[in-house]
């Protein structure tokens, strides 16, 4: 509880984030927030910028190989209720999508980064297919695009000390998987939803 408040404030101070909701509102209904991924702080940042009652119901998806290492990280992962996914061992039998859906049940929301890893370059990389399979199994979930601006300068890949610049987070209007929409089209449309928030 105390760690949660503290963490939220630290994340806000380091990232100097201004949060905007464009054509959408914070809500406790079940949602999937998907964002571009440029730094380790992204997970904490998106999570901490949600209003408290929404945040309590939201579980970020994080890479097990990073967040499971050491006491501090695994403790932090517990505080923000992260769902750790093993990126190395994705098997057909125990697909991470099924696990996510099992874990969120009918109450929780998810934060995920469909690029699959931090994108070292400018711009937003191609989306992996997880978002598609997730929507295919639960098509009623609202998919909220989130654009994170400037975090790659605050804590770039390979650096461990952040520089306190200002960043911004833009939450956009929800999208859904259309009936019978092909995978590639849907992923391109989802990516476009994030990209278009850049200029909003």
């Amino acid at each position, binding site marked *: 509880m105390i760690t949660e408040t503290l963490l939220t404030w630290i994340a806000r101070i380091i990232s100097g984030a*201004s949060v*905007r909701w464009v054509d959408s509102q914070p809500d406790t209904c079940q949602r999937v927030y998907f964002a571009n991924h440029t730094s380790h702080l992204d997970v904490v940042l998106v999570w901490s910028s949600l209003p408290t009652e929404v945040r309590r119901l939201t579980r970020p998806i994080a890479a097990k190989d990073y967040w499971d290492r050491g006491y501090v990280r695994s403790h932090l992962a517990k505080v923000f209720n992260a769902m750790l996914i093993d990126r190395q061992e994705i098997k057909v039998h125990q697909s991470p999508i099924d696990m996510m859906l099992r874990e969120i049940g009918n109450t929780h929301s998810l934060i995920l980064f469909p690029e699959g890893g931090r994108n070292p370059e400018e711009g937003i990389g191609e989306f992996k297919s997880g978002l598609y399979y997730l929507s295919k199994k639960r098509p009623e979930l609202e998919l909220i695009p989130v654009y994170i601006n400037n975090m790659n300068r605050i804590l770039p890949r390979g650096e461990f000390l952040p*520089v*306190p*610049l*200002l960043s*911004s987070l833009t939450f956009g209007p929800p999208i859904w998987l259309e009936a019978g929409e092909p995978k590639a089209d849907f992923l391109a449309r989802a990516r476009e939803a994030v990209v278009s928030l850049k200029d909003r």
Partner: protein
Amino acid sequence: MIKDWALLGIVLLLLSGATFVGRWLQRQTSLALDQRSVNSFNSRVNAWWFFTVILGLGFFQPTLTVLLFGLLSFWALREFITLTPTSLGDHRALFWVFFFFTPMQFLLVALDYYDFYSILIPVYAFLFIAARVAISGDFKRFLERVAKIQFGLLVCVYCLSFAPALLFLKCKHMDGSYANARLLFFFVTMVLIAELLQFIFGRLFGKHVIAETVDSTRTWEGTLGGAGATAIVGLALYWATPFPEWWQAAAMSALIAVMASAGAMTLAAIKCDRGEVSTGTLIEGHAGVLSRLDAVCFAAPVFYHVTRYFFGLAGS
């Protein structure tokens, strides 16, 4: 002592007046005023209240004032570097700039080590930044990137730190134990009055725009007329300053006004170059500490050094 209260009283009276006028203008829908300029006036007045409180503290706790200026400086630098594109190779250099040079500068000001803080940034920090960026191995647009960081540090940290440094400046004609706090108070008040008068003169008499492309509202009439009017206000407040002659207070006030508009112009040029539109979402909501401080940043070091040169105690 009586002078301190008199100056404080006058400023509070002016501020209350400005607040009242601002609120009144906001409710006048019939006057067909541009609502945006009324809002910008009101946000300016709010910033003045903030300054007055900080400076009021300066009368009693100089160290606290230095600390608060340090925090403002940190925030302004944050905005500046956010506006300026830096590349990944600059990351480590920026880390030193934010977490070593900025706190160090204000620490030295608080300790009154003039010999050190007057060169810390222009000598040590500037050379360090260039070397640190070179070590990172990224040489693309090297000079441009180094210059951006150096300029940000110079304006946001070095220049601004000379405002609280006025609290430790020893002058020949200082009377009373709060004379330094009064000098700082006088300085900031004059900067704010200069901004206001230049705005008013520009609106009333403005014809010849200085640089259309940079700032389409800043005119020669506004700048010079405002500077003249500021000199008259400075003259009226001459009793509160450590300047022995009346015309000296007026000349210093005019100097402040000229530097203030130079600062505002410079920052406007930077913002135009970066295109405020593209970065608008980053600083939105924080309403720009830097754009409130630009005038103070330019006026502070010049005011400090001119005062020190002409009116300072020899060898201090």
